[in-house]
């Protein structure tokens, strides 16, 4: 267990090292702090002095070490746009994104497991085929398009009545395609304050309503993937000898499906889930842009559009940190669920 943790920690440090090198190179090459600090009018000699004073003429390695030391203390300098420490800016935007990701993950877990299991147990059922069909279409639709369609349907509403309203079927079809709209699709409403910079959308009905559309959009890209994965793995497990043996022992089908089969199914799903967390965070940038959700993704995009290099660097470092932490957690969970992995990193 301890050996495993040390190994993981080492791996995590390595990844963070790579990320920090990249982040530092960005800062080193693109940000000119002097320009930011003093503006255009200061003569070159003064700038040079300031540069010397700030250590900007030091060799690369010295500068990198200084950067790393500050980074370890979460100090990445000041944001140009907000004119306050970047770490504070990022941390202020962090809860919104985390809540969106949490709601999405909840949605994915709650839907993908039952649907995946069902369509594996009854692969020929009409409902299973329907789910499979929808999921292949779902994979093909980019997340921002899903979001736009959802906004049109549930926020703006469809008042379009192309079918002749005087016939029965026409008005029925018109009723079918018209929606009322009215769902909030802009920002996160009026979240409840918890403490510090953390405002939550989970504490009030209004907050939850604001979460609905963004979370569905974000889930729409992952859900089909997980449904298909769970179905494929489950189908394979159901063919296995130990499932047959469990049946020969006279165990109830429910126990076979939900204990024997599902536990084995979840092992590869957990691994893939770990990898997909990265993708999920990347997609928050798109989702937050569409819904103007005031999270890190939207902040990052603004930082890019306004060339706020320190803020970009901080975002990269903190997102990198989140990836590393979640990946380690996922590995840990995998090790706890799968008895054949002794938590030393080597399969026994």
């Amino acid at each position, binding site marked *: 267990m301890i050996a495993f943790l040390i190994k993981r920690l080492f791996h995590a440090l390595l*990844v963070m090292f*790579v990320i920090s090198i990249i982040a530092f190179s*960005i800062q080193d090459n*693109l940000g000119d702090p002097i320009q930011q600090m003093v503006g255009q009018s200061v003569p070159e000699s003064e700038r040079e002095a300031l540069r010397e004073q700030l250590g900007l003429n030091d060799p690369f390695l010295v500068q990198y070490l200084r950067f790393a030391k500050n980074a370890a203390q979460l100090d990445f300098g000041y944001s140009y746009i907000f004119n306050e420490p970047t770490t504070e800016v990022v941390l202020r935007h962090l809860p919104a994104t985390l809540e969106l990701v949490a709601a999405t993950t909840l949605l994915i877990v709650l839907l993908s497991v039952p649907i995946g299991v069902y369509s594996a147990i009854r692969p020929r059922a009409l409902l299973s085929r329907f789910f499979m069909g929808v999921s*292949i*279409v779902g*994979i*093909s*639709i*980019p*997340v*921002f*398009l899903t979001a*736009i*369609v959802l*906004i*049109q349907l549930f926020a*703006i509403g469809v008042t*379009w009545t*192309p079918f002749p309203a005087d016939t029965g079927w026409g008005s029925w079809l018109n009723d079918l395609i018209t929606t009322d709209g009215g769902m909030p699709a802009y920002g996160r409403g009026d979240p409840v304050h918890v403490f510090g910079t953390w405002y939550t959308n989970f504490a009030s009905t209004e907050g939850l309503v604001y979460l609905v559309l963004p979370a569905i959009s974000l889930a729409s890209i992952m859900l089909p993937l997980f449904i298909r994965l769970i179905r494929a793995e489950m189908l394979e497990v159901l063919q296995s000898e130990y499932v047959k043996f469990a049946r020969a022992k006279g165990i109830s089908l429910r126990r076979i499906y939900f204990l024997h089969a599902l536990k084995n199914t979840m092992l590869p799903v957990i691994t893939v889930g770990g*990898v*997909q967390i*990265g*993708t999920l*965070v*990347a*997609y928050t*940038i*798109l989702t937050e*842009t*569409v819904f103007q959700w005031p999270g890190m993704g939207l902040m990052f*995009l603004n930082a*890019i*559009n306004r*060339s706020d*290099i320190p803020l*970009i660097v901080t975002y*990269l470092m903190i*997102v*990198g940190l989140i*990836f590393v932490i979640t*990946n380690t957690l996922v590995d840990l969970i995998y090790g706890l669920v799968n008895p054949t992995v002794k938590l030393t990193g080597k399969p026994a």
Partner: protein
Amino acid sequence: MFIVFVACAVLAPWLAPMNPYDLAQIDIMASELPPFWIDGSDPAYRMGTDAQGRDLLSTILYGARVSLIIGFGAVALQALLGVVFGLMAGYLGGRIDAFLMRLADIQLSFSTLMVAIVVGALVKAIFGGATFSAYAVPLLVLIIGLAEWPQYARTVRASVLAEKGKEYVDAARTMGLPSQRIMFRHILPNTLSPIFVISTVQVANAIISEAALSFLGLGMPETHPSLGSLIKSGFDYIQSGSWWITLIPGAVLVVLVLVINLLGDWLRDVLNPRLYKG
């Protein structure tokens, strides 16, 4: 179906009723006209017009062309990088293999979209907005190519490792052939069919990535729109009720990607190579 798409895109200048890049043909007064089946439409613009008064049908045709060019270009670059790195990793093994695969792992754990966004942001910051717009197509090819090579490299590496164990490679080596020759003349041809299959999926991915980047404002400028930037420009007007500007190119994008994905499925069934899991 796919061929129809490619044909439409290639023939866009002749098929399209108007040239969206030609300012002279644009009538700002005719902006935000709806498509033909809704009241208030103008028969000259069958799919309606966008906010700048461009004919939507023509713009979509041109946009699909841009999307396809970038999709294929990016995949060609990915394939080149992926095949070279994959062959090196798989054939030479050892440190090079470990280094390249670790790099691919890290990049994949960040997800290709994230890498594309970051690289896109950097490229834009380096070149500045105006230059970026001017050279958007090659730059987007570069960005998406750089972001998505690991998938290729892994597939190639896996099939190289499988091929390497076979006897004809040993035979070639005992004949004293140089390793480049063994790699390119003997192993590469045998890894072609999995490469072919993932290429179709990758084209779809690249088109989606391009659309996502454009949607974020890191891609094609609105004066020279791809499907993604059309969706973005239309999205600003969705609240005012002009849903067609964003949803029609969106539907075209979905159908395009779906068609490519189905083509990929079909190819996999036809070629039926053992698909190597990463």
